[in-house]
């Protein structure tokens, strides 16, 4: 049961539901652990980036 004020992460590879605060807390305790970036969408590249390539 989660509070409506909590943001939760759903990993559809496993169906696991984790409060994001728990993930951030885990990251603080173990900085070496790879932590998913919870709220970053993949955006199209800028035109400048394309030109530079």
């Amino acid at each position, binding site marked *: *049961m*989660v*509070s*409506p*004020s909590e*943001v*939760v*992460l*759903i*990993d*559809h*590879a*496993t*169906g*696991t*539901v984790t409060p*994001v605060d728990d993930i951030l807390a885990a990251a603080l305790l173990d900085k070496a652990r790879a932590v*998913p*970036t*919870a*709220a*970053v*969408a*993949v*955006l*199209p*590249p800028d035109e400048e980036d*394309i030109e530079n390539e």
Partner: protein
Amino acid sequence: MRVDWATLARYAESSGGLATMVGAGIDTYYPPELPAPIVLPLTVQLRGGQDEMIQPHQISFRILDSNLEQVGEEGTLGFQSEPNPSIEEGWEAGVLLTVVSQFLAEYEGPYSIEIAIDGEHKKSVPFRVLTSGEPEV
């Protein structure tokens, strides 16, 4: 209980009955190559009678691909709202939830997030995954 609205955003969080969203309405993701992990910050506005809202409920989220096949596993969470003592008579109670779904997209094309409450389908939120750099007009 119903889903009044649900939208994807580039960034979203909810707290204290309010949501903060950046880039709300995003519907296309451009990973540089596939397969690629896709992260979907989704904010859901639930509405219903206060008596209904304070009961425990299950809300589930599934990703469907263009063939309406489920991608990965369903994610389900339970929630229960606190009663709002200052709600106006005749108003519906509301709950804002922010859920960040992540899945592995293997193909370009349309997808959707399907939202169900207590096993009953309520809303479909479409989005697509493209690997080309230029958005279609």
